[in-house]
């Protein structure tokens, strides 16, 4: 493998010091004169028709400039999903609507001089509701006679709205029934996952204003600036060219900012009043009215031969998309498409999903994007097969997992809302990941030998995972690179760094390609007026897609630089040219010229032109990163509390362009996943209102909750990625639920079928087990040393 100068090296995250010293970098760090403040009124009912809404008093309240309802806003059906066009999510949403579909659905907005005035005026809006029966359990949604949530005629792209079915998926390979018939053991398990929220510490925030030409500028905390521009244009029925979207630094997204939520409202207010407008979600609004993770019920049935080879895998997913179908189809697809190919040894595979509307908060994109829910079920079912065959869970996985050079029919069958693209795996270190992780956790000393000390029992569990790197043949990114007199370069690209460090990775790619230092790359990203297009930050696409575009731009610029150098050297070809330390050197003649000299030459001296290029990237490949997760937990049988003691993640993300940033992505995802596995959960009243929309009652991990976390980055080279890189952002959120679930079984012989694994649920399962057998823990299995 070629030795790199900046790839695989830790260069400081380029915005880190500015952030650590509190520079004004976020959306809300500016304050514009005459800015209107926007507040919202939300439905208090899960399902109702607004029979009348009286805004007179609110409009007359001091400071109020505008009150928005369905009566005075554009009535254009669209999706809030910030996805590529045409969006695979149904058009089922209006800016404001006469019908409200969950507690937290938007009824009205007030724009006033101050936040206090807007908040007061909100209270003066009188709404007369006709309350409708509601669907508050996803299992009731498709029942005969269930209330129809989307009965609007204009709805487009939903599978069967009359039966609350936003989407339906069915794909298969081989003959599933024959596959089970020819299996020696069959395991069937059903798991249910809960509502959870991304909890970016910076909530949704948008500021809009008119520029000096009357165009609308949207400064917003988004993962998808270009989709925001397109969808706001659609929702307000104005041309794309009237809108400029700027993404400054973003205070975390994790998927919830892959949505158009505040942007169209603020833009409309600015359009109508000519004044700047600002809307900022409170923490409560972030919980009840932004987006959540799709709760799912996942049924997995695996048939295996005696030797452990899987013969058939069937997965059924019931996914709750909440009141609107944003990301409904694609998240459910990913529950299968990002999990089933992992076990490609099974010739018979079937995947079915029903994505249902309910009168509950709106689900959307969330790190892991369905794979997390799929793995919660699949990886526990795999352990069950291992137990049935008295086989080490590591061995059964090694027998069945996908390898380099192999494919799975699921890649083609199951895409993002349409047929997928055949993928052959070109880099996969799963065997090494399993071995290294097992060694680090002490698997062979601990598995099957739960350690008891008083009420506390320790056990180990593991799981393996894959994800993707962008969406093949759909996700496109572009980058422009231009040369300056001092040999520095401006990189403008649409890639959307939401805290991940993508801008730093982009600079490293440019530096490596052009033989300069990363500090010589001035990065400006995600401004729809100034940077080329990029679909944005989702689907683990940053390094692979946006980084790929940056590499393509840099390669073109490199050619241009060589052409000028050739002329300056008086040589005939460039094949012996190298770029290093800010110079072009001809290895043939020993001549050299600095990039600064080349820049001066081309800008001022001869045959003047701008050295610059735009590169785009779209790929038929979406190389999966792989991971093996291991956890040791301690369960207190008296309190039911699970404490993770040590967590090990061995990860193959190709070449880690910046290992420290990669490590940050791994640990961050694990800790987010630990919260999802152990504590984070929406609680609802029986009328569908969330009762715990704050960090007191919705517990996300804090510093003292963190176990020892060991990351093992196992480098491979992925030929389809920039400098051998694959993605890493999402995959590691998939481990905590199944790994802890498997550890719990290892420790106490209990398996929980509902997340999170709260003390109450653990105690309940312990009690249930006591009834079944008198205190005998799981049957020990001898781990087989490989």
């Amino acid at each position, binding site marked *: 493998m070629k030795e790199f100068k900046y790839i695989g090296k*830790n260069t*400081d*995250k380029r*915005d*880190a*010091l*500015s*952030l*650590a*010293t*509190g*520079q*004004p*970098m*976020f959306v*809300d*760090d*500016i304050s514009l004169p005459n800015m209107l403040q926007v507040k919202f009124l939300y439905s208090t009912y899960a399902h109702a028709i607004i029979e009348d809404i009286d805004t007179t008093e609110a409009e007359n309240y001091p400071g109020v400039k505008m009150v928005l309802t369905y009566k005075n806003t554009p009535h254009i059906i669209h999706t809030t999903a910030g996805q590529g066009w045409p969006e695979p999510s149904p058009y089922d949403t209006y800016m404001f609507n006469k019908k409200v579909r969950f507690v937290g659905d938007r009824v009205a907005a007030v724009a006033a001089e101050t936040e206090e005035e807007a908040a007061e005026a909100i209270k003066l809006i009188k709404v007369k509701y006709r309350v409708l029966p509601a669907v508050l359990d996803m299992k009731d949604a498709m029942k005969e006679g269930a209330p129809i949530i989307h009965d609007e005629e204009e709805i487009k792209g939903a599978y069967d709205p009359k039966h609350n079915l936003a989407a339906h998926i069915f794909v298969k390979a081989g003959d599933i029934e024959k596959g089970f018939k020819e299996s020696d053991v069959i395991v069937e398990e059903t798991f249910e996952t809960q509502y959870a929220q*991304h*909890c*970016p*510490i*910076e*909530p949704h925030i948008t500021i809009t204003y008119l520029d000096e030409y009357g165009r609308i500028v949207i400064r917003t905390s988004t993962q998808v600036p270009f989709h925001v521009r397109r969808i706001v244009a659609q929702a307000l029925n104005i041309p794309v060219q009237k809108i400029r979207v700027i993404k400054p*630094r*973003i*205070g*975390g997204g*994790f998927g919830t900012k892959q949505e158009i939520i505040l942007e169209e409202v603020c833009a409309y207010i600015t359009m109508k009043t000519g004044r700047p407008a600002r809307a*900022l979600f*409170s*923490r409560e609004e972030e919980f009840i009215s932004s987006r959540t993770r799709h709760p799912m019920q996942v049924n997995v049935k695996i048939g295996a031969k005696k030797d452990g080879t899987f013969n058939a895998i069937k997965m059924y997913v019931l996914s709750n998309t909440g009141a609107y179908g944003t990301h409904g189809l694609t998240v459910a697809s990913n529950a299968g498409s990002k999990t089933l190919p992992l076990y490609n040894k099974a010739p018979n595979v079937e995947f079915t999903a029903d994505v249902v509307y309910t009168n509950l908060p709106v689900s959307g994109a969330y790190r892991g994007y369905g794979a997390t829910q799929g793995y919660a079920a699949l990886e526990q079912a795999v352990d069950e097969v291992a137990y049935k065959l008295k086989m080490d869970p590591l061995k059964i996985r090694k027998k069945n997992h996908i390898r380099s050079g192999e494919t799975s029919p699921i890649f083609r069958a199951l895409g993002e809302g349409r047929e997928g693209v055949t993928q052959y795996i070109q880099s996969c270190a799963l065997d090494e990941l399993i071995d290294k992780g097992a060694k680090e956790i002490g698997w062979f000393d601990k598995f099957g030998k739960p350690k008891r000390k008083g009420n506390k029992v320790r056990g180990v569990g593991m799981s393996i995972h894959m994800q993707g790197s962008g969406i093949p043949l759909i996700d496109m990114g572009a980058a422009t690179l231009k040369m300056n007199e001092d040999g520095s370069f401006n990189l403008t690209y649409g890639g959307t760094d*939401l*805290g*991940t*460090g993508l801008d730093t990775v982009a600079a490293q790619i440019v530096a490596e390609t052009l033989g300069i230092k990363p500090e010589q790359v001035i990065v400006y990203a995600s401004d729809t007026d100034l940077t080329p297009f990029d679909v944005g930050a989702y689907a683990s696409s940053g390094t692979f897609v946006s980084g790929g575009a940056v590499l393509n731009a840099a390669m073109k610029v490199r050619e241009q630089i060589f052409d000028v150098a050739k002329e300056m050297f008086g040589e005939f070809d460039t094949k012996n040219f190298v770029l290093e330390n800010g110079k072009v050197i001809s290895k043939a003649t020993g001549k050299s010229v600095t990039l600064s000299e080349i820049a001066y030459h081309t800008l001022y001296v001869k045959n003047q032109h701008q050295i610059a290029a735009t590169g785009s990237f779209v790929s038929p490949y979406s190389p999966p990163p792989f991971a093996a997760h291991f956890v040791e937990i301690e369960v207190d049988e008296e309190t039911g509390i699970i404490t993770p003691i040590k967590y090990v993640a061995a990860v193959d993300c190709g070449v880690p362009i910046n290992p*420290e*940033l990669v*490590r*940050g992505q791994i*640990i*961050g*995802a*694990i*800790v*987010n996943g630990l919260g999802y596995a152990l504590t984070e959960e929406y609680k609802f009243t029986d009328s569908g209102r969330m009762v715990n929309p*704050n*960090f*007191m009652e919705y517990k*996300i*991990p*804090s*510093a*003292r909750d*963190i176990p020892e*976390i060991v990351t093992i980055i196992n480098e491979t080279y992925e030929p389809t990625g920039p400098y051998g890189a694959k993605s890493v952002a999402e995959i590691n959120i998939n481990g905590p639920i199944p790994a802890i679930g498997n550890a719990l079984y290892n420790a106490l012989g209990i398996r929980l079928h509902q997340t999170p694994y709260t003390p109450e649920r653990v105690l309940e399962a312990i009690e249930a087990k006591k009834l079944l057998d008198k205190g005998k823990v799981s049957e020990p299995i001898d781990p087989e040393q490989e």
Partner: protein
Amino acid sequence: MKVHYTINGEKKIFEIKPGEVLLDVLRRNGYSEVKGNCYMGTCGACTVLIDGVPHTSCTILAAKVDNKSITTIKGVGTLQHPHPLQKAFVEKGAVQCGFCTPGAILSAYALLKENPNPTDEEIKKALDGNVCRCTGYVQQVEAVKFSIKLLKEEK
């Protein structure tokens, strides 16, 4: 009413509204480095030091801080002259989105003033009120430890 603060060493007089919390007064007067809006003291992004002690500025009345000294992240170090803690957070990968970073650094700063050689547990305890959704805290704890080394070198 008027309040007198010393912010990052500068004397300031602000007009405040009854019931207003410190966070809103600071942001309204240009201290945008103070983040946060949970108004329950649960996320810690709005942490400032009041007479050297970390406090969530969203849960303290602006009037209550009259005549006190307030330190924001800009009082710890600047882009031109960063504090070792800030340098360490950068070097150890402890900054991702950076929204919680000022609060976390202020909590660590107060800890190190009191206890220049904290254990891992003490560092975690000091950071426990500063919720971070990006980093998973591991690199933050490493950064605080690394800053101790940098601080010693600086002396």
